[in-house]
């Protein structure tokens, strides 16, 4: 197992180097010059001012040199100073990480807590109206665009009913540790973010549970006289869960990616929103730090998926 982890970590290095080159190239080669962008229209901003700023930010060097400068500093944790905020970009990113993790974590929890039971329920109630309703929910949940659904929820629950807040992580003026207020803010965005996953899980679980229920070992378990609950939870569900774990890697990626949209809709001050805004402003250091951070998270989540895989299904050999 240890060899497996080490091997996977070593494999991750070229992946991350590749990502770093692509990120750097895309950020730099896209049209637009960041200095011109944030000085556009400033009165008495001269050519000399422009050249000074270009030099200060190291943007006057050839591109490959800029990359080498950046990557050598980045491996030491220094992703460069933001062109807009004049602060270390990685530190700024880290300030927003907890918000994104809370949102993604809550969404993941909702996906599992709602999606899995729904799928199992649908399988057991196969052919009934309950099954039908869950399946329709599965299709709709998958098809509805998150930003639109988010706006609808805001209009209904925040604007009309005034039950839940629509902006940010905490009511302005409330104590930072006001957990109840934070939870209230979390409900809408985490549910919207979780929706696709809930739909996915319920669909996968339904199919898998039906498959497993039809298999010989389940019949054998029944024949042995085991209680229904033991058959379902110990034998059937454990096997049905394997594809859920497979889907987990992709779903984590979806959570991080989807968080970008949700963070925009709910003004959630997370990594996605921050990176997105930096990309528009061509604040290279933040964009690069942001993409590297989410990429690393993704690589780790795939690694975790493979490990969980091995634990859930002992037949899968680590190798």
């Amino acid at each position: 197992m240890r060899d497996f982890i080490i091997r996977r970590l070593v494999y991750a290095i070229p992946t991350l180097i590749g990502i770093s080159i692509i990120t750097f190239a895309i950020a730099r080669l896209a049209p637009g010059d960041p200095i011109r962008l944030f000085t556009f229209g400033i009165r008495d901003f001269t050519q000399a001012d422009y050249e000074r700023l270009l030099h200060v930010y190291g943007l006057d060097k050839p591109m490959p040199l800029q990359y080498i400068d950046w990557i050598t500093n980045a491996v030491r944790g220094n992703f460069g100073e933001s062109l807009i905020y004049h602060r270390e970009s990685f530190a700024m990113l880290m300030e927003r990480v907890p918000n994104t993790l809370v949102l993604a974590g809550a969404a993941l929890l909702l996906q599992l807590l709602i999606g899995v039971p729904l799928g199992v329920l649908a399988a057991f109630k196969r052919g009934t109206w309950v099954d039908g309703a869950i399946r329709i929910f599965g299709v709709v949940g998958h098809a509805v665009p998150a930003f639109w659904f988010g706006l609808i929820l805001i209009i209904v629950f925040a604007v009309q009913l005034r039950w839940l807040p629509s902006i940010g992580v905490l009511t302005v003026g409330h104590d930072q540790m006001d957990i109840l207020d934070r939870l209230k803010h979390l409900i809408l965005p985490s549910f919207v973010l979780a929706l696709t996953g809930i739909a996915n899980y319920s669909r996968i679980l339904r199919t898998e549970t039906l498959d497993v229920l039809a298999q010989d070992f389940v019949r054998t378990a029944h024949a042995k006289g085991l209680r229904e609950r033991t058959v379902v939870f110990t034998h059937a569900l454990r096997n049905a869960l394997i594809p859920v774990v497979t889907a987990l890697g992709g779903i984590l990626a979806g959570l991080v990616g989807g968080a970008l949209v949700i963070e925009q809709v709910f003004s959630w001050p997370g990594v996605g929103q921050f990176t997105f805004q930096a990309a528009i402003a061509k604040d290279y250091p933040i964009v690069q730090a942001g993409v590297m951070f989410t990429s690393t998270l993704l690589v780790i989540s795939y690694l975790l998926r493979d490990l969980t895989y091995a634990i859930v299904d002992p037949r899968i050999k680590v190798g």
Partner: protein
Amino acid sequence: MTKRFRSLIAGFAGVVLVATACTSPGGQSESPTPEASEKPQQGGKIIQGDTSDIATMNPILVADVPSRRIVQLIYDDLIQADPKTGEPKPRLATFSVSQDGLTYSYEINAKANWSDGKPIIAQDWLTGVMAVGKSQKTVRKSLFQDIQGFLDYCTGSATSGCKGTAKTISGVKIDSSNPKKFSVTMTKVSCAAIIDLTGYVMPTQVFGKYVTDTSKDEIDTAPENSAPTVFSGPFKFGEWRKGDQIILNKNADYWQGAPNVDQYIVKIVANATAIANGLKTGELTYGTLQAKDLADMQTVQTVKITKYPSLGYTFIGWNTTSPQAPGLADKRVRQALAYGLDMDAIIKAVVFGEATAHVAHHVPVQWAYPDVTLEPYKYDKAKAQQLLKDAGWTMGSDGFLAKDGKKFTLTLSTHSDSQERTTVAQVASEQYKQIGIDAKAAPEAFQGLVTKLTTGDPVLDATIIGWSLGTEPDPYQIWHSSQIPDRAKGTTGFGFTFFKSADMDKAIEAARNPTNGDCSIATRKKNYETFNKILNDEQPYNFGYVPNALRGSQTSLQGYNPAPFAEVYNVYQWWIKQ
């Protein structure tokens, strides 16, 4: 962050720098507000919704609108613009100008103290200017280059003229008997100086350590830039929750009187829709609205809507040297493009009527706007067609104009993040087809467009974009011939129409650096009259329209009277009605 950069950049940010005034909404009746007679209630908080986080709280590093606003709330300026005219008026200091126009004398109000109790003195302004000299990241350096001795003091690249040899700025003299009095001598008369030099009063007890003889550019990364400690404005910095909110607490010792509210909080939201929603739910006290949301917001009883003409305009800039559209070089063609575009219809359809057609560079709320009648270029298809015919363009069998065998094609570029401008481009293309021009809209990313404009990329025929102007009306950076980008020399500028006129240059120079030292409004206005008349006639831009600024606020918010020149100028008088 389209958000950030659209608001921040599509604008003449230098402008924003000096926007400190109090005027009642221009063009609207000015009846005394009912709350004027009520006694303000104490307490509560103002929560402003904004779509961008701030970048810094150091006045010399500010280059964006949200940061500038926070800086205005925590640091007072020397001078503020007059509510009605934008003329400079005293705030922290009274001022006078010498006969030759070269020396400005200031006296800071005797009552004015920092929040730590120390008096605000001349040295505090000098500290700010020295910080500009030391900073490598400021975008303001050139504003100060005309102060005597500034170039000897400042450090920077060789091309900037900064020598870094002097230990002080010789042109700034502090009265030895009164530390609140000082004078600033310029190397040449610069009419914009009074407004340009107004900010930058920084507490020496805090920032003095960054402008010592041995300091380099430490000011650029000073911790006080993101957590200031001593204040001269109505509010004190409390906390900056990055990407989420900036919390300011009232400065009970503010020299003009303590604010009525306890806190001023800027809540950062994702976009204009979130602001509208936040106003509806009561989560926000005030914020900017978009024209498309106006009808909906008018149905919300708890929200008051305030409109006033904004200090800026959206225009179509013609590239008068475009190789693809050589017709643009001819004044008659550009005039035809003005007559051939029904701007009133565009305003009605695209901007929901929340704008006014515009035909000059300066906008009506500025004192620089001419009193003479300008050609309004009312929609007149026949006149447009006649002008095009006069210019030698003849209608072909395909329904398009041609000259010397070349069809009149026109690409209207704009930035795709603005739906309004993209739609304007589409509607304008359709209208131009009616007069025989094969026009098409070409939206692209703002970042790329800005670079093309400032480097004078010949690929652009016409660009729909906007300027937001400032208190100081000097149009040098946009219209002086020296600001035309030159690709061969690698120089850049905002003169992306390539239009030049010696008479216009003369008028701009005379209003900017008059040799006789006459910076009076009357004289400058006369020069700007000449300048605007040339532009109105020559049409290097179709000057488009002046949009209305739209603000939504809770009806409980009292004393809030935003205006073209400023919004938070009287924030210490705002109060929340319980």
